[in-house]
């Protein structure tokens, strides 16, 4: 019977530890993936943007709490895909070099040469491993790093974009956790037929991007459409991002949204006004007068904090720097008062996603906790039964002079010992399962055709398999307490036993 109690504790401890570790690992992986393209702190003034950003970046990078900063333009637009579908898309205009310093941009580039197969790709079927494509993959990678692509027809290197790997729907995610690009897609023609279009976007594919530009006061001016060649595709690890994001060069977005540098002119109100042309000396209709330069703008500056810096402290420091920056450009950039809520950490930005997963983890833990709590009653029932069985022995101990508390302590100590052994075994078993969870999962798949974590469904190729020490300690302690709690009532009962009745018990 004590072995049954020990097993109950062991199983509940192992279950909770496995659940908490996998769900916690899932959250951690998700958050890290989300963070990979955001940086640590963002300074954002959506749509209209703000000028003098290079000066702000310079000021930010001088601070020791900050490792780097990069300008980006983030907006929404419409994308025309190879099959003529038009979808809403998030467009990020980036400077790839500084963007990579602040984020993990180059790590997310998908089409690049690989030397080793990824974790689930046991048969090495990933096209990126194929030696005959190594050169092409290296070129695609280089194109993504520079956001350019060579146009063979024109002989020119053109600005290009990098698409989320799920945007076109032409990359099929396999059960090995890799992508199998389709050779071609199809597009409907006006005569009712269909025609082939390139399926592998980095090799000649392009998309149409339409954005609505705004003037400096925020009023819409006109829609702008451009064809953007695709240099490569990226995978961040967050499906929503990979399904609806495109990176394009910062300059392209500045041009399309009219956020680039422009001359300020004073319009001539009298249409019949004339002036002398200083070159020819003849009179001509009065030209608009250039009164200044409207500097280029971006909507966001991403900041990467120094290693080990506290995120909230970095955010506060960025705000202080912005305040000093604003004092230099009063009236030209958004006020620091307005920016108070626009300077945010990546945690603030992803609060909805993070909280959703946290709540999900909490809910699952709660449910498993309730289920595991039944082990308290199981231990109680087992101890109750053991005490009934040992009634006569309790009477003997009392006859030999044992006190009521001494008898109770005996059972509580026994419960504690069983709890300690059960919780130790459960923690060890949980740890062993978590660190081998992918091998176990693979074995289940091979043996019983049971695939729980399907890479086609889940974005992470492997199940998170990290056990955090603090979680293991908490689960262990709770496991021991479960057993102690379960033994309390039976121990109390044993202490209250009438020794004479106990001795006569049959």
């Amino acid at each position, binding site marked *: 019977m004590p072995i049954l109690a020990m097993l109950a504790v062991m199983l509940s401890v192992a279950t909770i530890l496995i659940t908490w570790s996998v769900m916690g690992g899932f959250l951690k992986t998700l958050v890290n993936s989300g963070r990979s393209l955001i940086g640590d702190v963002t300074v954002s003034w959506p749509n209209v943007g703000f000028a003098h950003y290079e000066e702000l970046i310079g000021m930010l990078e001088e601070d020791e709490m900050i490792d780097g900063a990069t300008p980006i333009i983030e907006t929404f637009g419409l994308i025309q895909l190879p099959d003529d579908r038009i979808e809403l898309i998030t467009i990020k205009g980036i400077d790839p070099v500084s963007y990579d310093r602040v984020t993990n941009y180059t790590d997310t580039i998908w089409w690049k040469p690989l030397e080793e197969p990824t974790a689930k790709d046991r048969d090495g079927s990933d096209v990126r491993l194929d030696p005959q494509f190594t050169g092409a993959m290296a070129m695609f990678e280089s194109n993504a790093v520079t956001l350019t692509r060579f146009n063979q027809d024109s002989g020119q290197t053109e600005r290009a974009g990098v698409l989320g790997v799920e945007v076109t729907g032409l990359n099929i995610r396999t059960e090995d956790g890799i992508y199998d690009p389709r050779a071609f897609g199809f597009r409907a023609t006006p005569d009712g037929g269909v025609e082939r279009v390139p399926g592998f976007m980095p090799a000649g594919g392009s998309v149409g991007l339409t954005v609505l530009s705004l003037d400096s006061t925020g009023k819409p001016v006109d829609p702008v459409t451009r064809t953007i060649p695709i240099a490569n595709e990226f995978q961040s690890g967050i499906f929503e991002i990979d399904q609806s994001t495109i990176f394009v060069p910062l300059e392209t977005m500045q041009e399309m949204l009219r956020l680039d540098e422009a001359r300020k002119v004073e319009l001539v109100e009298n249409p019949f006004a004339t002036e002398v042309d200083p070159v020819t000396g003849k009179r001509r209709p009065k030209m608009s007068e250039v009164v200044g330069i409207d500097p280029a703008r971006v909507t966001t500056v991403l900041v990467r904090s120094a290693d080990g810096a506290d995120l909230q402290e970095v955010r506060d420091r960025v705000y202080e720097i912005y305040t000093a920056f604003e004092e230099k450009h009063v009236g030209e950039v958004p006020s620091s008062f307005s920016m108070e809520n626009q300077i945010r950490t990546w945690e603030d930005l992803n609060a909805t996603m993070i909280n959703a997963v946290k709540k999900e983890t909490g809910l699952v833990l709660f449910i498993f906790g309730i289920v595991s709590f039944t082990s308290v009653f199981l231990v109680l029932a087992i101890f109750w039964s053991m005490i009934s069985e040992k009634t006569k022995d309790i009477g003997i101990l009392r006859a030999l*002079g044992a006190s009521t508390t001494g008898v109770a302590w005996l059972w509580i100590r026994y419960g504690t010992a069983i709890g300690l052994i059960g919780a130790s075994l459960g923690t060890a078993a949980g740890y062993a399962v978590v660190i081998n969870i992918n091998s176990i999962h693979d074995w289940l798949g091979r043996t019983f055709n049971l695939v729980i974590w399907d890479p086609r469904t889940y974005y992470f190729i492997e199940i998170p398999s990290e056990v955090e020490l603090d979680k293991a300690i908490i689960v262990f302690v709770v496991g021991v307490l479960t057993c102690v709690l379960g033994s309390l009532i039976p121990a109390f009962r044993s202490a209250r036993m009438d020794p004479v009745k106990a001795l006569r018990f049959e």
Partner: protein
Amino acid sequence: MMSNQASQSPILDVKNIRKTYHLGRVKVPVLHGVDLNVRHKEWITILGASGSGKSTLMHIIGGLDRPDRHPENPASIIYGDRVITSMGAGALNAYRSTEVGFVFQFYHLLPELDILQNICIGSMIRYGRFGYRSHRKGVESRAMELLDRFGLSDRMKHRPAELSGGERQRVAIARALINEPALLLADEPTGNLDLKTGESILDVLAELRQSSGLTMVMVTHDERIAARADRVIRLIDGRVVEQTGVGSA
């Protein structure tokens, strides 16, 4: 067999012991005002039929049970200069542990422990978990001495289930004696043994009393066993109806 080695000074003075058990709503009176006096080193036998209340009386004397309360005519058990009936639970535990040794009809050994551990457990309870460590050597030495005396020195690592009935009862006697009590309470110690083995157990007890000067109170329904005591107290329906033997009051 009568012996006259008992001293005149009383070790136990029992007065007006009443006990009623409650079986649901039914009251079952067991003892109806028992008076008893036991002298130092005396061996008395309480003789009575089954249900006469002799075991209950022994439990009350041993501090395992308490007599009924009758404020107008209170019960009292005086052991030496201590009033057992006024003791709190802690003092009663100490009394059972140090002054009294119990021997039961069905031995009541702990099956998970070996013989040596079964004997030493009384001392473990007496000294407590930590105190026992400092007394351990002395206690084990005494346990082995008792086992040797009872011819069981080669069985000390055996479990109770591996011993015969007579051997188990000897172990139970050794356990009762481990803390060197002044009073041995034996409840039908031969009741579960054949005649020959029972005789051998009585010989052991008689020899013990001779050598150690124990005071013994034995409960039995067997007239032959009772005959070996200094004094026999006959109990019928919870009342002392007769006392016979040396110095009988």
